[in-house]
């Protein structure tokens, strides 16, 4: 694999005394598309927030392009973030702006480009996600899949070196799911970027990713290529990949004994 753009080294994190991440080590090579998979609430998005510099680890560090993220001052952090793009779970489009203004947002904030060039760039980005012609619509007029694609156009507005996707497949119909999946792969390759996809959609993501980390309960329990994951004998991965009801993840929430609570004694 090529040199890593992002390194996550022994990252630990806790909310109050509740541990969320326990000694996470990950490496994201340049130009590759890597997925972080796991159940809801296992700490996947928390890892992304550490990479984005929103959270500070209680132990360990995240290094991007050789710089330790939590040691950067605000100016340094903002300079780093200008080279990143993040697609949020439901797009997080600015609802008071048109599609055009959403995509143009970063260009206007961070560059001195004239409006004519911004217009051309926005149209190119919208064309890249197949939504040329929607520039005058408001986010409320878009379907869930379209909103996600507009958000994707906004994410790549400044051609970032690192693109992070937080649950990009959540709540999409099968067609939109395939379209978004294909776009993530194509954009990564076309931009020569490094992409990190946080997801629990196994089938769609295994089709497009180069490498996968499986996270459970704040720790990595398996990793490998898509084929390694499909062939994995690890009980949790097997249950997760094949969507089995029985396995290490119990169907019932751990609580008091049901029969005892009902007053039925065996």
């Amino acid at each position, binding site marked *: 694999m090529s040199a890593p753009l992002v390194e996550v080294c022994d990252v630990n994190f806790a909310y109050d005394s509740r541990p969320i991440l326990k000694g996470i080590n990950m490496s994201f090579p340049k130009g590759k598309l890597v997925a972080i998979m796991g159940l809801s609430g296992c700490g996947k998005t928390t890892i992304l927030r550490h990479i*984005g510099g*929103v959270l500070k680890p209680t132990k360990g560090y995240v290094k991007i392009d050789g710089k330790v993220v939590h040691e950067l001052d605000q100016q340094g*952090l*903002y*300079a780093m*973030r*200008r080279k*990143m793009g*993040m697609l*949020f*779970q*439901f797009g*997080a*489009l*600015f*609802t*008071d702006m048109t599609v055009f203004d959403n995509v143009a*947002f*970063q260009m206007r*904030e*961070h560059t001195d480009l004239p409006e004519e060039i911004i217009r051309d760039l926005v149209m190119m980005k919208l064309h890249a996600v197949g939504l040329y012609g929607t520039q005058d619509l408001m986010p409320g007029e878009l379907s869930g899949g379209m909103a996600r694609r507009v958000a994707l156009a906004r994410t790549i507005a400044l051609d970032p070196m690192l693109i992070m996707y937080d649950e990009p497949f959540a709540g999409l119909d099968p067609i939109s799911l395939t379209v978004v999946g294909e776009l993530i792969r194509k954009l990564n390759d076309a931009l020569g970027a490094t992409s990190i996809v946080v997801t629990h959609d196994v089938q769609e993501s295994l089709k497009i990713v180069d490498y996968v980390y499986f996270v459970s309960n704040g720790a990595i329990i398996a990793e490998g290529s898509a084929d390694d994951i499909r062939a994995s004998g690890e009980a949790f991965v097997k249950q997760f990949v094949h969507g089995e009801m029985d396995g290490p993840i119990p169907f019932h929430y751990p609580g008091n004994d049901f029969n005892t609570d009902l007053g039925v004694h065996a």
Partner: protein
Amino acid sequence: MNIVGGLKGIGRRVVNAVWRTGYGARFFLMTLLYSGMSFRRFRLTMREIFFSGVMSLIIILVAGMFVGMVLGLQGYETLKRYGSESALGSLVALSLVRELGPVLAALLFASRAGSAMTAEIGLMKATEQIDAMELMAVNPIARVVAPRFWAGVISMPLLAALFSAMGVFGGYVVGVVNIGVDEGSFWSQMQASVDFQHDILNGVIKSLVFGLAVTAIALFEGYDAPPTAEGVSGATTRTVVESSLAILMLDFILTAFMFQGA
């Protein structure tokens, strides 16, 4: 055990209140610190002046008109007892410029524009728009909060002035046109008794302070709102309640300093 639990509960509330006050003060200072963009790119602030100021015009003008009309009716009834109907213009103008204009306009502004600001920022937070902005290396305090803050501070005195002007017109319609108070004495008494510095300027200062308090509360409540429907609804309610109390409390303090012994 219950006593210990009760004491713990009180302690937790006190700590939360102190923490929230500190967070609010820090938020306010950050807003001032990152205000540069609001003036460098005044278009952003103008847009917010439109939403919080211009869109509040109808309610302010209509309320001002009715308050002035009521003042005209009530003032005439009281002044007639002392044979001073001709002082109606002074009574209406002084009541509005010194007190009712700034206070009532601020109360209306808090319920119309303040609550809207809280709900908008609370929902932006709930839908991750604030996080998205932060991750795009755009400071949300500078881009979202500060323009709204200055828009509120600029709009409030203008709205209060329009409220007072409309109120004077309402008083004129009822007192002069409807009841028949002499038009000349209505305007001349008003001109003679209203002092620019003592009355009008103090009224403007009051409305500036109210504007600052209302927008600071509204923006903080929105920014601090839990990102849920219940959280945003609670924050909006708190904005209206806290702003109204702050306006009335500040009005007393300012009045005591401005008009004591006058």
